[in-house]
């Protein structure tokens, strides 16, 4: 118990009310939608095919993506955690960057690499003097897998690498002294001790791949629909809300199971015992095999993580189009046109989405999200840090939103709040609220460890010396928490800025956000639309990268983000 007794439950009120109204109510609405339709109309809306096809594909691609991610992530994690080599820090930062990148940016980046207008095609066309694009990796399973690996390898590197650096080196050494050779040390000691973190990372990666939306929508094309994409499709294109609801329920059940499994493997009884505060020291690679592996893996990291980013940025600055009317003649050159076009309003059409308006929308939403998520996160973290009866009962309620995807949230909001006062007026308040729900778990996880880290005796000393409760917070807690609060602000801002799933449900044609507008641009034909999508993606990339670097700089070392 960190605060004195009876008033702790008051802390629960605000975040609890917020969650009940904005998370559990929409969730309930989805259930109600499905079952009232079932009783009124029977199963007309339902077909097995609509459920099994996306479910099967979702599981299959998540399995493949996870496997590939581990295949690259585990050696990379080992490399970064154990060896000292030139460029290690830079490569590690690069490999950790994707985690925070918005899905639309990643999808666009891969589009500029392997899409019809991408560098790979341009290169092949130039090399062999072709008049049409020879390959199209877009709208394929490979594109989805590639993007998922790009995204989630950072999770493996972070989680497993962290466990590797904190694993007490004496275990390996004790095994060696007891007569175990390198292989048996690995098989009998290191691997079993790392297993919980490997499994934990694998399940988290699987969860992210399972709930992937933006990447699949933009790189998979119509024939590769995951559950999330199918929910979106049923709700927004087919207007079959009950089916979308049913898919959401199945999806939610699966994510819940994965999350529960994850909690299971994350708490092995020996987890804490195996980790020491003593850090393993890095060693210089010695054998030729080690050096070769390091070079190859570094190359792989560069190809996988740097190429798509460079490809996006460079492609946004280059025009490469057949001149109108003259087939085969290709106009090439450096250009800032895609950027300058962002600031010009060319049509009076109501469907014309003004990029500047999108930037303004996104900034307003992100600032609001930042404030809502962080203040709710702060209060929730204090509530969770108190160890009353309430905590045990209510903690699961707080952590459940983690399992709900942005798309389900969007659908729930659509069903629940598609009435006044929510949908009226020029300002869609729902988007920052949805974003806050998505960012809240991250905010809590950033702030809670810092609160738990403040010794209660510090507060007691302040109280004994006559500080009032507010003063105690101001003088003791706040200075310690400041760092975490800034991280939480930056984190929720960045999450909101790049959020696509919920926004795609909730933004109206007149009030798009930046990611929604990028998606709209890139799905339309025409070089200019394509270029503008790239230009916006590049700007979003830079903002997110800046946010990510800021977070890495100020967050306390060893803090877990998941």
């Amino acid at each position: 118990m960190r605060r004195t007794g009876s008033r702790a439950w008051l802390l629960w009120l605000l975040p609890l009310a917020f969650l009940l109204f904005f998370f559990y109510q929409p969730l309930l609405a989805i259930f109600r939608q499905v079952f009232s339709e079932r009783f009124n109309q029977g199963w007309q809306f339902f077909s097995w095919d609509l459920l099994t096809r996306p479910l099967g594909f979702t599981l299959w691609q998540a399995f493949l993506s996870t496997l590939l991610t581990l295949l690259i992530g585990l050696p990379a994690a080992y490399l970064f955690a154990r060896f000292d080599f030139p460029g290690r820090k830079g490569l590690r930062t690069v490999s950790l960057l994707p985690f925070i990148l918005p899905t639309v940016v990643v999808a666009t980046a891969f589009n500029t690499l392997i899409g019809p207008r991408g560098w790979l095609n341009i290169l092949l066309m130039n090399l062999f003097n072709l008049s049409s694009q020879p390959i199209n990796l877009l709208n394929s399973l490979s594109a989805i897998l590639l993007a998922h690996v790009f995204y989630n390898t950072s999770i493996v590197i972070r989680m497993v690498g962290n466990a590797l650096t904190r694993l007490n080196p004496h275990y390996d050494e004790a095994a060696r002294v007891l007569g175990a050779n390198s292989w048996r040390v690995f098989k009998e000691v290191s691997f079993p001790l790392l297993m919980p973190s490997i499994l934990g990372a694998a399940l988290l990666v699987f969860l992210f791949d399972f709930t992937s939306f933006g990447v699949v929508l933009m790189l998979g094309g119509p024939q590769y629909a995951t559950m999330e994409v199918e929910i979106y499709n049923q709700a927004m294109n087919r207007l079959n809300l009950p089916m979308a609801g049913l898919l959401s329920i199945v999806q939610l059940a699966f994510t819940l199971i994965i999350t529960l499994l994850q909690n299971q493997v994350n708490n092995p009884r020996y987890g804490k015992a195996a980790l020491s505060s003593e850090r393993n020291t890095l060693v210089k690679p010695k054998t030729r095999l080690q050096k070769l592996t390091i070079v190859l893996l570094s190359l792989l990291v560069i190809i996988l993580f740097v190429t798509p980013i460079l490809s996006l940025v460079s492609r946004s600055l280059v025009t490469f189009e057949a001149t109108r009317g003259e087939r085969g003649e290709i106009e090439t050159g450096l250009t800032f046109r895609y950027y300058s076009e962002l600031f010009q309003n060319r049509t009076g059409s109501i469907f014309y989405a003004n990029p500047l308006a999108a930037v303004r929308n996104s900034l307003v939403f992100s600032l609001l999200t930042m404030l809502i998520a962080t203040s709710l996160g702060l209060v929730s973290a204090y509530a969770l840090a108190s160890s009353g009866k309430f905590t045990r009962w209510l903690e699961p309620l707080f952590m459940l939103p983690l399992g709900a995807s942005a798309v389900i949230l969007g659908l729930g909001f659509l069903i629940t709040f598609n009435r006044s006062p929510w949908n009226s007026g020029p300002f869609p308040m729902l988007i920052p609220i949805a974003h806050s729900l998505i960012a809240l778990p991250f905010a809590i996880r950033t702030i809670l460890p810092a609160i738990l880290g403040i010794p209660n005796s510090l507060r007691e000393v302040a109280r004994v010396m006559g500080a009032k409760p507010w003063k105690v917070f101001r003088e003791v807690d706040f200075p310690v928490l400041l760092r975490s609060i800034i991280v939480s602000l930056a984190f929720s801002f960045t999450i909101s800025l790049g959020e696509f799933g919920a926004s795609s449900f909730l933004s109206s044609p007149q009030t798009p956000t930046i990611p929604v507008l990028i998606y709209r641009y890139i799905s339309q034909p025409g070089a200019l639309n394509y270029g503008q999508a790239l230009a916006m993606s590049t700007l979003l990339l830079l903002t997110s990268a800046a946010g990510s670097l800021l977070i890495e700089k100020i967050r306390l070392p060893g803090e877990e983000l998941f």
Partner: protein
Amino acid sequence: MLRVEEIYKDYDGKPLLKGISFEVRQGELVCLLGSSGSGKSTMLRIIAGLEEPKSGRVFWNNLDYTQKSTHQRGFGLMFQDYALFPHRTVAENVAFGPRMAGRSKAEIDASVEKALATIHMQEFANRSVIELSGGEQQRVALARALAPDPCLLMLDEPLGALDHNLRTELLKDLRKRLHDSKKPVIYVTHDQEEAFALADRLLLLNEGRMVQKGAPEMVFKQPANAWVASFLGLGNLVPGRVIASNQVETELSTLELAVPAELAPGTQCMLLLRPQDALLGERATSLPGHLRAVVRDSVFQGDYYRLEVLVGSTLLQVHSQEDFEINQPLSLAWSQSTLQCLPLLGTAP
């Protein structure tokens, strides 16, 4: 028999071990004693093959082991934090060594049984090691280290992680077990009580150099230099200067004693005045050149009183059979044979 020759090792670019040589004979228990950071643990890690020396060699029975892999050496090492495998039970931890040696299932079971019986922990066999108390973990770690029947046993501060009462209790226990094992043992510690209680021979390490080797009694009686006397807490150390082969000048007075031959006149030295050898009152006044002191403090210690006395501007500790009043004047002397003149640095046999 273990022999290490001229071991040098750098740590973070600074020299940590500066030419360490010693031997451990069959059945001998050797204590490697030194303050923290003196390189004791690193010495063990080099013998175990966990770290490579910058130069120097490690021999076992006259075979050069310097380049041999750790797992092929057949030595045992017990870590200060015990490093019991947390994902394995007590019995599995003990069975690890015999299993790696490729013994048969029956042999492994037998050796585990025997090892657990010696530490009286048979009923703990299937417990998880993380449920054990500190003392139990220490016993299991020792059983695990002994189970594969190592030809040399090394212990790195085996009692360091335990609280004081438990240490005293386990020290007796450990002494019996180590002697019963009849194996050569290197025992690393910074605690001189442990070292005196256990060792057949002491090796004292200071700033990367072997300062003194010898039986505990010998080290106690003949500390090689001022650092050894100070580290072992042997008594008052008063700086002085040799002025003749039988005279040392100090801030107390000029004292007469036998000065070792290697300390030529003019050399700076330290006088060791042991509290328990101090002569007080009338027994002092009969000696020529006795000191005039004033009592500053007196603490009852059971068998004696520990007095803090001021001689001129120097505070000294002496033991007394009777109590004294604070500020009471006192005559004080040491007989010539109990005074020792120690070099500031340097080694003794």
